[in-house]
């Protein structure tokens, strides 16, 4: 791992991001109707005002110039103006990022804590009855539609038992940690269900591969106890294939926990996306999609760095 590698990777991401922005820009311009159609037939908005809006959003310029203007706003400024609220896109996104990071971070943390031992155990006891049962359960976790499990949780814990708030991020006037955790409990569970399931599969299969390697057999031959071998030697290497998946899943949750956030009225990025879609807020949609894509690109780079840290055989430079 060297600094030059990092710089090279980051520099390599720039053309990728440009490509992404071009494709997104093209898709958004494919959309039937333009952003000002929101106002076009509103008699309350005079032609004069409409012209103001068009100038304000730079919509009177040729498309390539619009792209460059937008690019400039992305790099240097406020990412353009939201049509729905009139405020800067970046500011709106940042306001929503906090709740989403809380939700996503918590879900990721719990998933990792659960999936790691689960996957490791299943690999070490491959074929055992418990492995089969856990395998079955993790597939079940992947196969449950998110909104369905969310609805059932709400029914049980909010309506029947009345012990958890069914939606929202916090109670008004209650900033306590307990209150926050109560609100987090169900959305985090719903998000974690699927990720625990898929990650433990990846960790299990990585572990199965590693445990078959010669150096592990050598360790056994040297008389190390089983769990000592698994944890000291194998886990590090078994994590490697799972790292990318974990990094990408994290970004996926941040850019698109649309369903969970809608059901639990969580004021995050996913909700903002749906609201912006209903309001045809193109600058906001562009901003959100770019942020998500940027996240994926960065996640890949970070995953590579973690690879190198986990596996001393990988040397970039």
């Amino acid at each position: 791992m060297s600094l030059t590698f990092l710089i090279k990777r980051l520099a390599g991401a720039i053309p990728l991001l440009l490509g992404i922005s071009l494709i997104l820009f093209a898709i958004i311009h494919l959309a039937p109707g333009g952003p000002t159609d929101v106002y076009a037939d509103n008699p309350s908005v005079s032609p004069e005002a409409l012209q103001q809006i068009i100038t304000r959003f730079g919509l009177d310029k040729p498309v390539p110039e619009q792209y460059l203007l937008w690019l400039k706003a992305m790099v240097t400024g406020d990412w353009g103006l939201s049509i729905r609220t009139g405020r800067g896109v970046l500011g709106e996104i940042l306001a929503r990022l906090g709740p989403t990071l809380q939700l996503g971070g918590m879900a990721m943390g719990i998933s990792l804590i659960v999936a790691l031992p689960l996957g490791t155990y299943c690999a070490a006891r491959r074929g055992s009855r418990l492995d089969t049962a856990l395998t079955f359960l993790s597939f079940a976790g992947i196969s449950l539609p998110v909104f369905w499990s969310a609805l059932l949780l709400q029914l049980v814990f909010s309506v029947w038992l009345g012990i958890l708030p069914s939606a929202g991020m916090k109670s008004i006037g209650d900033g306590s940690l307990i209150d926050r955790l109560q609100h987090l409990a169900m959305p985090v569970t719903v998000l974690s269900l699927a990720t625990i399931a898929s990650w433990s599969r990846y960790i299990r299969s990585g572990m199965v591969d590693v445990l078959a390697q010669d150096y592990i057999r050598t360790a056994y031959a040297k008389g190390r106890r089983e769990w000592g071998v698994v944890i000291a030697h194998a886990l590090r290497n078994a994590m490697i294939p799972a790292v990318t998946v974990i990094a990408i899943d994290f970004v996926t949750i941040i850019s698109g926990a649309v369903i969970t956030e809608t059901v639990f009225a969580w004021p995050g990025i996913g909700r903002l996306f749906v609201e912006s879609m209903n309001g045809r807020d193109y600058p906001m949609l562009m901003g959100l999609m770019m942020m998500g894509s940027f996240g994926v690109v960065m996640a890949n780079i970070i995953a590579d760095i973690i690879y190198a840290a986990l596996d001393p055989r990988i040397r970039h430079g």
Partner: protein
Amino acid sequence: MTMKMTRRTMLQGAVAGAATLATLRATTADASGYGGTLRVGLSYEIDTMNVYSTGYLGDAQATIVEGLVAPNDKADYVPVLALEVPTLENGGIVLSDDKKTMTVTYKLRPGVTWHDGKPFTSADVKYTWEAVKDPAFIAESKDGTADIDSIETPDDLTAICHYNKVSPDFKSTLFTFGIMPKHLLEGTDLNTSSYNQTPVGTGPFMATEFQQGQYVVCKRNPNYWDKAANGDQLPYLDEIIFYMLPDTNTMITQLKSGEIDMIVRTPYNQAAQIAMIPGMEIIKGPLLSWQHVDFNFRNPLLADLAVRQAFAHTIDRSVLIKAQGGFPEAIKSVVVPVFALYDDTTPSYDLDPAKAAKILDDAGYTMGGDGVRAKGGQRLSFKFVVSAGLSDDENVQQIIMAQMKAVGIELVPDNQAGVAYREARYKGNYDLIYGRWITSADPVYSVFYGTDGPNNGQAYSNPKLDAVFDTLEHSLDPAVRKQSSSEMQHIIAEDLPTIPLTTNVAVIAKVKKLMNFVPNPTNMTNFVHTAEWYMEG
């Protein structure tokens, strides 16, 4: 998903009608006491708290920001920040000599203060007009601003508005939506002001916390200007909290779990379930609104009266009503029966699919092998738009589709959400569209069915009807208005640009212990007068 109901969908009021001495006051007995929190679930996410730029009806805003006048539960305008509603009789409205322009004088209520303690004056009224009119301010509704040439403020409590025309609808827009504080906003950019999150008004409640996508907290204004009939200082409630809950299922879950106390637009088909929740009740409130299906005249097949008549003879309203929990009522005229101008002799079409089939046969539309009629290779197959995600509307759509299929007309759903639905509706990007209009107390129908009507997305044009509108909307003589209103209803019923199907009613779910609640049928929402609401026990 949310339904976007905007102020634009309302109609303009007319100047006719005597000054009313009624107030917004509820008629109930003495309140038992102060205190309590009311938690309301909103089905949409509030975009901005500014009443002029929000794309939704201003439910939460109505508790904070007040206008000069407001409609009461009977949709009559009553004074709020003005001392009386200006009329010709009380001298508040003066027509110019040539009867082409008018001057409206508001006498303002003395002793009213903004939430920050500064006095409310006529300068605020003038500022509101200037600010909303400013083209740099991006607003959802600027209705009425262009009709005023200038505003004079001879003293702090008098605002004289010089209109450049006789504007019958002056009460339903601008100063009714709300007054903005000049001392806080002058010289700021209204598009980005913090006013859009925590507006400062004169209302019974003050916006203390706005969390985007979560909730708005409105706390009791201890210095509110109004008192109850028994002398109690208003308002009673300590706070009203509006929660934004975009998912209908979640909203109903929250009612069941007792996390919210009230929702104002209950889906019809969910009312029965909610009524079973202990402590909850369903209130059916009237709305100046009706549900209808419109035809697009750009489609030559739909421009054929015979096809439209086939629809009118086939759609069974009783089934639609049943599917909507029995709440709406069948109508035959675009004028909802509560209005005095409603004409009960408006012709209706008897429910008779066989007759519809005969009409189509006679017009040359013969049944094809695929169960769809056609004439000269043109199939009677139409694109049918409703607002996506509204279960009530999608159910109505499916029933109409099934009924029309029986007479050989195919309808293909093309539902749109949010702005896309509105756009389709105004631009005529449909063959058939189902929806509703909400109006103010004195509706003007030319906006929907006049050739140049701004809400006429169906490209419908009937010069005879235009002439009737011209008479109706430029006359203050009740007899003339009644006569031409009848003509209008007959022409629309015979020409069938639209089929009025059912009334639209508000189904409000609330806790029983919330007292003094009176539903408001207008676009100013149920929250236009919250000062006297209180919680029992």
